[in-house]
């Protein structure tokens, strides 16, 4: 279990943190995720990659945690967390730092869009694996990422960054 934890805990933590946006909640979640893995090891049949299995469990637990805390307090915290992410896009552009503006806009995507962008770009999940983790059809995976990218382009445009697409 230590090996498994050592191998995957940072990715699980980062995935959880991007969903719940609170470090303490994300830390609590990873303990729960790996405890579930410990309890359910017999159910893992190796049909999917272990990281896919772990991310699916993490997603389920993160969304459950968000549902439990879906009240005004969390909304305020979430808003604060968004605003706390360094410079806003306008400031970033003023610094002529497109990369920084892009990261700020990525942080401002909706939860559904953040999740799919992270799974594809950072966690290197295939169309099939994302479909398995999120529980949506493969075609929806493709169109959701397309819309996430369009939203990202809109946010960048609002911030004055033109990238030639769309």
């Amino acid at each position, binding site marked *: *279990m230590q*090996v*498994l*934890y*050592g*191998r995957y*805990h*940072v990715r699980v*933590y*980062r995935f959880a*943190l*991007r969903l719940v946006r609170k*470090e303490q909640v*994300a*830390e*609590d979640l*990873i*303990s729960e995720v*790996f*405890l579930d893995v*410990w*309890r359910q*090891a*017999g159910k*893992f049949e*190796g049909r999917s*990659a*272990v*990281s896919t299995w772990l991310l699916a469990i993490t997603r389920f637990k993160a969304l459950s945690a968000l549902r439990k805390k879906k009240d005004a307090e969390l909304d305020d915290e979430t808003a604060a967390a968004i605003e706390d992410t360094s410079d806003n896009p306008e400031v970033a552009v003023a610094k002529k730092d*497109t*990369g920084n503006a*892009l*990261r700020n806009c*990525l*942080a401002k995507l909706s939860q559904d869009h953040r999740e799919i*962008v*992270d799974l*594809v*770009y*950072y*966690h*290197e*999940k*295939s*169309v099939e694996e994302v479909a398995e983790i999120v529980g949506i059809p493969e075609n929806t995976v*493709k*169109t959701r*990422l*397309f819309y996430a*990218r*369009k939203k*990202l382009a809109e946010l960048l445009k609002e911030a004055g960054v033109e*990238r*030639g*697409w*769309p």
Partner: protein
Amino acid sequence: MTANDKELAEPGKIEALLPWRAAGTLSAEETKRVDAALAKDPVLAKQHEVIQDELAETVLLNEDLGAPSTHALEKLFAAIDAEPARDPSRASGLIARLGAFFGGLSPRALGWSAAAALLALVLQAGIISTTVVKQGSGYQTASSEAPTAGTRVLVGFKPDATLNEITAFLDTYHGSIVSGPSASMFTVKFGDKTLTAADAEQLIAKVKADKIVTFAAATQ
């Protein structure tokens, strides 16, 4: 028909696959199909470049999230200790499956040349715990390295870069790989001291200009 001619409200079949092409997670057949379309359609190729920037910044954003404290691990093992005793056959089943877990490579690594893929396997599996090339420049696993001085840069290599080219690159810049690949990027530590922001910027510009490098940006 180019991507410009298409209705942008819905992605075309090839266009929809571009993010996975950039991440290196398409099948060989799909990759071939997408690459053929990219070669023919400059607008699609431009969009692919935009996607590569998105991918690189998403990796940086996630890398900046840091890691959990040891509290999470302590909490996990306290919870496991509190669990009722389990059937030993279940535990051994888990151990057996762990072997299969670690057989799984990052999909991107499979697209690399054989030598580079082997390097990725060795790095990812954490088999080695000491520098394997030579002192001062070489490969280390993230787990083996205590935090030390040095300038850390997130580096992406061309998919067809060979082990020899990567070794020569690390020698030239006194670099050592400290972690990765993560989304096809490696964290490389350059030198033994932390550079000033201006010097680091100069170094990154040089690294970026190297023929086997596709991406370079400062990281923690």
